[in-house]
């Protein structure tokens, strides 16, 4: 289990030079991923997807369809992995669990008054308890960005620690909503707070705010994970979410994970993509790599 720290034990965060980060990210993007490495990377990316639907208009029918797709990405192509998890609102957790559980696919539930987090702690607690009791394997909570920006970092820390206690065996992903934190220095500080407060994963975004999972932001968060690992020997997972809609961007994310954290993180236990449309582009690339020809988008199911 995660070691327990107090807020005053969170080490000072290093400053982040945005220009330097952009240069480093450009280097990752210049990596040329071809042939066998590309195919391996694409399949790895598929197995790391948290297939997501988080809309007010979600219905049971919609969730059922997505859950079926999670286990049957492309029936015309045998040997493909299943996705890592489906990510839904708490009200859909029980339903999702009943469908995907038997495939070893996890059910992640957003929580703590997602996406804004603008609710008192007891509401957030009730929200999380409900999701856990309905069988969620993973809890994707949001931090209180307003409090963070107001400088009340201890409040943010305590809230995460409180939710972590409710999770039991469910793994906790902490969504920083980096698009609202505005600076990489803030992203780094929020990452450190989340990790020391007990996050099993840190996650960039809700998908409701732009910009979401930029490579710059993900790189900054990966460095926080690396530093924590160097200090404590404990691994924390990473989930960029929102805006990763094509295979190339997914591969560049994997390149970053490999070079910043190492290959131990290149499994869906430690790395996830939060995405709704990524899977189809990756599938299209896999089929193109094998046949040499792009197929029409009509051959890939929209669920």
């Amino acid at each position, binding site marked *: 289990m995660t070691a327990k720290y107090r807020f005053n034990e969170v080490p000072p965060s*290093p*400053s*982040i*030079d945005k*220009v*330097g*980060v952009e*240069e*480093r990210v450009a280097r990752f993007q*210049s*990596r*040329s*991923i*071809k*042939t*066998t*490495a*590309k195919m*391996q*990377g694409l399949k*790895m990316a598929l*197995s790391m997807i948290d297939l997501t639907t988080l809309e007010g208009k979600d219905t049971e029918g919609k969730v059922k369809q997505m859950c079926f797709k999670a286990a049957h990405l492309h029936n015309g192509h045998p040997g493909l*992995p299943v996705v*890592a998890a489906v990510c839904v609102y708490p009200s859909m957790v029980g339903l999702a669990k009943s469908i995907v559980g038997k495939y*070893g696919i*996890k059910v992640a539930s957003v929580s703590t008054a997602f996406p804004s987090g603008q609710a008192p702690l007891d509401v957030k607690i009730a929200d999380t308890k409900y999701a856990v009791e309905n069988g969620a394997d993973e809890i994707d909570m949001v931090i209180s960005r307003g409090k963070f920006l107001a400088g009340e970092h201890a409040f943010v820390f305590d809230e995460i620690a409180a939710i972590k206690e409710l999770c039991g065996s469910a793994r906790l992903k902490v969504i920083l909503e980096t698009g609202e934190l505005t600076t990489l220095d803030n992203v780094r500080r929020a990452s450190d707070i989340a990790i020391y407060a007990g996050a099993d994963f840190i996650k960039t975004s809700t998908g409701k705010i732009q910009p979401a999972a930029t490579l710059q932001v993900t790189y900054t968060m990966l*460095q926080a994970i*690396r530093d924590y690992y*160097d200090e404590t020997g404990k691994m924390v997972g990473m989930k960029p979410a929102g805006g990763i809609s094509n295979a190339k961007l997914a591969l560049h994310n*994997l390149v970053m994970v*490999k*070079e910043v954290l190492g*290959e*131990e993180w*290149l*499994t*869906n*236990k430690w790395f996830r993509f939060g995405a709704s449309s990524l899977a189809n582009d990756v599938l299209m690339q896999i089929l193109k790599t094998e046949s040499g020809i792009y197929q029409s988008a009509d051959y890939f199911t929209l669920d």
Partner: protein
Amino acid sequence: MSTKNNAWEYADSIENASHINLRKQYDLYIDGKWVKPSSNKYFSSSNPHDEKHIADVSEANEEDVDLAVQAAEKAYELWSKISAAERGKYIFRIARLMQEQARELAVIESLDSGKPIREARDIDIPLACNHFFYYAGWADKLEYAFPNQHKKSLGVAGQIIPWNFPLLMAAWKIAPALATGNTVVLKPAETTSLTALKLAEIIEASGIPPGVVNIVTGFGDTGAAIVAHPKVSKIAFTGSTAVGKLIQKTIAGSNKRATLELGGKSANIIFGDAPIDQAVEGIINGIFFNQGHVCCAGSRLFVEESVAEKVIRKLKHRMQSLQVGNPLDKNTDVGAINSKEQLKIINRYIDIGIKEGSEFFQTDCAIPTEGYYCRPTLFINVAQSSILAQEEIFGPVLTIQTFRTVDEVIQKANNSPYGLAAGVWTDKGSKIFNLTSKLKAGVVWANTYNKFDPSSPFGGYKESGFGREGGLHGLGAYLK
């Protein structure tokens, strides 16, 4: 859920080299024509990656150099008098032709010099083009660059360039000389003549009057003949300090002007309040860029003691992700050492370092069994008095020293016969200004390293040379 350990290696991604167009044998480019060397001697230019022969290159002797200087002298009569706008036109034309052939030039540069295709493609070639574009723009604006000074061109410029940035150095030398109305005799380094010869073809295609640019290939004695030639008015040299001193001796008592851009042992200084991960990246760019074959390489690292352990740990981790190998692989970060001789020199320094007993670290990456390769190397806790911290190694070898106070690090950084460049990493603006004004180095980078731009002057203090190249200062060096 899958928890297996996924090894994910980048597959080979070799840049296609089938499109390049090289002759089997290159003559000398003199007076707009390709001329056989009078000695009829040729030498082989080979690929440091696999030691394979690429093309034969002429060895110019004194007679050939004389021919080239005469051609340049004759062409000067015309070139110094045609309208400045006309000069600019030809220089722009060269720049555009280079851009059109950028891909071919990048592949040849990588093959011939051993530098990674990524660097040749993204740095060397675009920057070389930009130098021509930049100076082309100045050609008809010299009166605004130096108002009321009535500057005049010098005559024939003898230019001798090194093997670390072959085409880029040719551009640094030729572009400002032409923009100011001088004519040129240029000698590339013997291990890397090919892109200069491709540039000769481009210059030929540009229609510039014959003799304005002459390119003679050869070894040290070819260069010596250029330096000693009485009709050469200006020497522009980039290379080792030892040769720079020889040049100084040769031209003493003559009217020849000189700019010398020589060696370095530049300090890269990391303070505790620096953005650490970006500083680590700056260390990597400072010393492993172009296999460390960079005169301004950040080869002496100074780290504030409070963060030394962390910086070194992060640096070692980052170094492990450097891909060392075939320069033509698009994923290669560190390519081949330029020549067998240079590899010997580097290995000799590594042996000295090991004998001296500093902590030694090399990455575990596999390196090719043939060709000239050296793993990225660190020596940690090196003393200021160590040979490794004093002499220029010109390879991927970094020495690390720690410091406690600002005054101490300024003193140690300046305690070197060289003074080419320095890097300062800190979040505090006031600290940057304090150091930049006290470090005796021609270039001081703040929170970055190895950044070049045609508009920015470059050059050294002390034994790193004198004179500036790039920017307005670079124009001034070709005018009286």
